[in-house]
């Protein structure tokens, strides 16, 4: 083991330990009261009214923060036995609760403290990223954080200007911002990156235009109203289009930068390489990544419908009906992003050849 690697591991280990210890003891940061559950008694009951078996839980616990720190309280919780909805409380859980004015009673359990699990996973992600990919991993991490920043900014703007802005035009602007910033931050500021940015923007708008057209022509009966959170927006259709626009954006950016940097490398190795040869090797390179990306898209976007569809078919809905009701929007998004992935290849190739290998006349002039 080299000395460098040892230092890296020690730093990562320290960072991980500190983050995890911190998040396990961050109660003092919370305004909401947190109840540490010390005892749970479950009573199983069959409800006639709600058609299901449920637990009547009697929960004892100690408040961990705020004015009533250290106070012991008891609270009742009713929850479906299968855990479809609500929280099945277990001993050791930490609950976010709303207390009465004097702190002796609990009015409502508003949630479970889950921040620690997210932090554990995030720490694991960073550790594995740095250990496996080193410098490149660090770059990926930075581009990841930049992307989160832009997403947060877009959401912030929209939350503020909610009534005056058109959702779709806002996100078209935002996606250009994503492309330019994230490619410029993670790559050298040169011709190669410029070519990738132009390719990505052109691919995005051509493929989005195609999807838009196809949906306008044939997609009148898509069950947009079953989309999650649809009630939060006024512009139902635009909300759907924004999902489609963003879903394939990352993939388009990746194809653009992969193609332009590999073509750039080929030109640097052999400045006299012909355009036809460039296009041919570009195609070979992209063939390898297309399959991967489409599969990633499918599993990541389509599998999350499983719990909802499962509940529906358990309630005697047929699988076809349940899938077209709750899965159609996601499947359309998978398809349109896959189409953008495939379209991005010839577009990126063409743009890259045009920018990186200007014809002889231009060079002379």
């Amino acid at each position: 083991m080299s000395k460098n690697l040892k230092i890296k591991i020690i730093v990562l280990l320290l960072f991980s330990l500190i983050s995890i210890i911190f998040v396990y003891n961050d109660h003092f940061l919370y305004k909401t009261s947190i109840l540490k559950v010390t005892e749970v008694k479950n009573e199983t009951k069959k409800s006639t009214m709600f058609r299901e078996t449920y637990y009547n839980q009697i929960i004892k616990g100690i408040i961990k923060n705020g004015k009533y720190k250290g106070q012991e309280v008891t609270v009742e919780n009713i929850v479906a036995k299968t855990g479809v909805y609500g929280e099945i409380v277990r001993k050791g859980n930490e609950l976010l609760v709303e207390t009465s004015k004097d702190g002796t009673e609990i009015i409502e359990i508003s949630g479970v403290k889950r921040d620690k699990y997210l932090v554990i996973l995030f720490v694991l992600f960073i550790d594995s990223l740095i250990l496996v990919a080193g410098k490149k991993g660090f770059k990926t991490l930075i581009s990841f954080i930049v992307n989160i920043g832009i997403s947060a900014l877009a959401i912030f703007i929209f939350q503020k200007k909610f009534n005056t802005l058109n959702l779709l035009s806002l996100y078209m602007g935002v996606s250009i911002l994503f492309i330019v910033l994230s490619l410029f931050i993670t790559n050298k500021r040169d011709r190669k990156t410029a070519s990738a940015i132009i390719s990505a923007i052109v691919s995005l708008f051509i493929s989005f235009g195609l999807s838009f057209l196809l949906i306008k022509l044939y997609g009148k009966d898509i069950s947009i109203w079953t989309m999650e959170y649809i009630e939060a927006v006024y512009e139902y259709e635009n909300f759907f289009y924004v999902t489609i626009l963003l879903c394939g954006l990352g993939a388009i950016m990746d194809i653009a930068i992969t193609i332009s940097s590999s073509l750039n490398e080929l030109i640097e190795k052999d400045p006299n390489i012909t355009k036809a040869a460039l296009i041919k090797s570009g195609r070979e390179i992209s063939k390898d990544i297309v399959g991967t990306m489409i599969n990633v898209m499918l599993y990541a976007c389509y599998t999350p419908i499983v719990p909802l569809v499962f509940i529906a078919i358990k309630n005697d809905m047929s699988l076809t009906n349940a899938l077209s009701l709750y899965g159609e929007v996601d499947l359309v998004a998978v398809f349109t992003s896959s189409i953008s992935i495939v379209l991005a290849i010839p577009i990126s190739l063409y743009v890259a050849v045009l920018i990186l290998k200007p014809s002889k006349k231009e060079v002379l002039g």
Partner: protein
Amino acid sequence: MITILSIVLLVLLLLVGRSRGFKTFITFYLSIFLIMLYLLLMKAGLNPIILAIVICMLAALSILFIINGINIKTKTSFISIMIVLIFIFTLIFIIVKRGNIQGFSVESIETIGGYSYDIGVDMIDVMIGMYLICIIGTVIDTSISISSAMNEVLENNQHLDSKELFKSGMNVGRDIMATTINTLYFAIVSNFIGFFLWHRGSSFEFIINYKAFAQEVIQLLISFIGSIMIIPLTAYISSKTLKSKKILYFLKNKN
């Protein structure tokens, strides 16, 4: 609608990727079929977790062996995929169980309100199964890309030892990793906009502990971890098996 999109996708794949594109299309539909099979068998009463593991194995078997053929590359990939699957399973099991990640939040109450909650299985198991299937696509593809690339490298440079081979496998893996992370981020985050619009005005501490938020973030992070972990594993196992295959081949020819 789906039929038209399928046709457009198939035509584009054939134009851009030729026979490779056709393979991708078959894999795509095979995967959709497997997800449907999962739902049907789960309805029939099979345990969601065991079933998910079987479906993941089926996905790996079919994508690797049917599409890429039975050979040392695909066998190596299969072993590495199974190791990652076991690790991720342990991780998800602990996190979902302890963090109450199962089930739905308030915003879905209108959708699920009409259904009976007596579905005969614990939602925790359904959730764990879903996460396992979510990551399998990424893991399979990263793995097979690495082992194929390493095989090619070895074929062109027979003199490489297993250490150098491991290094080149890691290099290929890192390139794939960077693109996978970007792709996954946008694919999953496109669902987040609605969430934040719904909860505008909510405090940070509310959102970070919220169930629906945790569900999506966990999916994102688990997929990241899976697609990163598979890289050194595949590279390491391939560097050993590919090299030993060459040695065996060499010995055979000598006699």
